[in-house]
């Protein structure tokens, strides 16, 4: 596996030592995905998770991932985020299934890279066309939201994905534009945003430009076990301008966010308490599928997903990558 920006270190995992629960989950995920592909229900995010699962479980691409992508996730040469049928799961989504943004272009290129060893140059060209005058990389026809109202995590994720495809042969002007965008905000309160910011600067070889304050972010988003994406203290209501009551809100541990936090801490040599390096992996080794979902205040119904394929892959990476740390601890 060649690393995907959303799933760092997937390449380093010893797939032969996957926990049985993770092996079973991913095996079932692939079986379900097969049925969904037959029904032409596919998102580019599922393409990525399916491809990682296939490479881990089978050691090589045993599915025709690029053909699947070309058939279901390509329209008029654009790399789509969703197949037409997938979008029919939402009422009145109309032709919005034809959305090609930095993340779907990146997903397509990544699948080609993993299964064919290289990606077609057209994805680089399409990504290049998404560079905005501000230096950020996104498709305003998909999401016309002004910079002020865009989610920081989204901005940095797509910026990193764009940088990843463009870095080969990137001009100094583009490198400067991307760097300037990446450092245009002070430290956010979100570990995902800071992780993708870091990856962007790493990709364009401008890591010395990294903003200050990342250690504080990691300190604030530490939960037990692992890390969350945000802290309760940082939750605000954008319109009232004041911190809203958060006494009923609960931050949750997320393997993906924990992975981002530990990657940041490793790369930036951030000093964390010993248990912060190992508690998530230890917890997951004991309870592999105990990945929580949010709750909306007092309502017990999960607000969004708990276990997903991406979370399972991240959990497997955590257990594998930080297993040695557990042994040392």
């Amino acid at each position: 596996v060649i690393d995907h920006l959303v799933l760092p270190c997937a390449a380093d995992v010893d797939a032969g030592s996957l926990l049985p629960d993770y092996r079973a989950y991913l095996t079932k995920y692939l079986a379900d995905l097969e049925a969904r592909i037959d029904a032409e229900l596919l998102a580019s995010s599922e393409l990525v998770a399916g491809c990682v699962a296939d490479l881990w479980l089978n050691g090589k691409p045993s599915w025709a991932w690029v053909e699947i992508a070309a058939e279901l996730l390509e329209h008029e040469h654009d790399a789509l985020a969703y197949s037409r049928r997938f979008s029919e799961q939402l009422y009145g989504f109309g032709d919005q299934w034809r959305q090609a943004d930095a993340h779907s272009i990146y997903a397509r290129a990544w699948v080609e890279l993993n299964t064919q060893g290289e990606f077609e140059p057209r994805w680089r060209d399409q990504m290049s066309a998404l560079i905005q005058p501000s230096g950020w990389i996104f498709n305003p026809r998909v999401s016309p939201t002004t910079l002020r109202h865009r989610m920081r995590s989204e901005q940095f994720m797509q910026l990193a994905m764009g940088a990843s495809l463009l870095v080969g042969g990137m001009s100094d002007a583009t490198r400067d534009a991307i760097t300037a965008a990446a450092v245009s905000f002070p430290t956010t309160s979100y570990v995902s945003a800071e992780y993708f910011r870091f990856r962007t600067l790493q990709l364009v070889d401008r890591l010395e430009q990294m903003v200050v304050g990342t250690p504080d972010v990691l300190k604030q988003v530490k939960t037990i076990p692992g890390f969350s994406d945000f802290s309760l203290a940082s939750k605000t209501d954008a319109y009232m301008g004041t911190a809203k009551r958060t006494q009923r809100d609960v931050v949750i541990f997320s393997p993906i966010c924990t992975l981002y936090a530990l990657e940041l801490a490793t790369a930036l040599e951030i000093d964390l308490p010993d248990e912060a390096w190992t508690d998530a992996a230890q917890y997951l080794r004991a309870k592999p599928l105990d990945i929580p979902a949010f709750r909306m205040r007092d309502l017990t119904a999960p607000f969004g997903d708990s276990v997903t394929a991406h979370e399972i892959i991240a959990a497997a990476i955590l257990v594998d990558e930080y297993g040695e740390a557990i042994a040392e601890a």
Partner: protein
Amino acid sequence: VWGHIELGSYLNATGGRVVGQVLTDAKIRTYSRRYTYEPVSDTEIRVQPARGGNALTLPTRIRLDASLVAFFGLYSGDGSKGTEDPENLGTIVANISFSQREPNLIRFAIEQFRRVFGAQLAFTFSLGEDAALFMGGEGAEMLRGFYGGTLPPASALGQVRPTLNEADNRYLDEVRELAGTPSEHLAFYYQHRDAMQQILEDVKRRELASASIPLSASDRVVASLRRPFKKGARQPGGSSRADELYLSGVNGLGELFLKILHELEAALYENTQRSPQGLIVFNGAPDALGETVDLENFFSTSPFGVIAGRRPSFKTHGGALIGRWPASRDMPLQSTVLLGPAFAYASGLYLAEGGTPKSEIFAMFARKPEGLSLGFTSSEDVSVNLILRALMQVVTAAEALSAWKVKVGSQYFTELVVTGLKHGVPMLRGGASGDGKLRTMEISLAIKPWALTVCPTLERFADRYSHVEPTGSGVARVDFWASSTVARWVFPLMIYCVFGGAVKNPATEFYR
């Protein structure tokens, strides 16, 4: 009369201990209060909170008719459910107040409050507003008018507020993307506070007088002014008006009032003759009570079946009734509708919380309404259920709900972002300000099961789920809508159900 509020027998059965639960804004909280009570006569009972509060003589049995049931629906939407006890989180102390600006509804609420509590009440009409209103536009004009045409020179904060309190200091620490500094905004507030309050009180008094809402000697009008941009106004001249109606003379009676509301709601939701604790007893199953209205006859003859002086035409197709308003489209209709307790409650609830401008609903009988849409937002299944049941009494299920979505306030955007991360995708917003249709389908699809669990009524409309909409503030809630054509068939019936007993000609008798 559809039944009674059995106050006497309920208090006897519970020994005066009132206990209940409130679910609002995804918060589950309890309320509890003990009352002492003694019969005054065969038909009246004297009730008093055991630990202080007003003693009131109330009817042992209160008759439940369409207007009182609708009033509780209205209160369910616009009424206070109490405030959380800071010393005892999860517990609320109930108080009775009512947030509404529309004059016809204020007048209606006052009448119904008096039906429940008698003449022992006094009302305080409060107009809450953000001081930012007076920093631009019409508000600034009013302020200049107050000073005779020219504002006095701006004072420094230290001059108008030599000693700052804790709230002032918090305000100064808050950051807003606005012209001017928090210090200047706070100075404006203190320099003109008395003037702004007087202006607002005059505005409220004039409105009440023009709507023929008389003030008794014990009634009061007050203005509640907030620091600039604190209450929701986002720019100078912006308004964040909130009108409240407070009741005096019922101190400590809030828990009992809430209990009546919740018992009524439970009986209607479950369609049971008796509410869980017997406080409400209908004369039969609620869905079997009420006035059966022939739709064609209603819209052909009733003064309520008119919009802007015009009536619809009818035909039948395959035995089904089809109606059409002038310059509108065919609408399959139920031939009869039962205007019973559930419909009355839903009517009151919609008038409180529906997405339609109230002024248009009351004006539609006399003039062509503008923007007569039908939409409803709630985080509670009971509300969604009762509104949809009412709509489906008039039109088919396919017409009652065009589509639905989940609105999520900015406080919970962080949760949406993480939901996207769990699928390896960014949260892509729609629209320039980001409050359009969320473009990341994985997130919308992940939130759908939550909505169906919280509002199981929407299961039958699961295929009409549209998207998540990140917008404004507040907890996640479902929002559904129907066409404006449906609105034309439903609103006349709702208004008739609530006001038909007191209003004969809606084209002339409603305040507009």
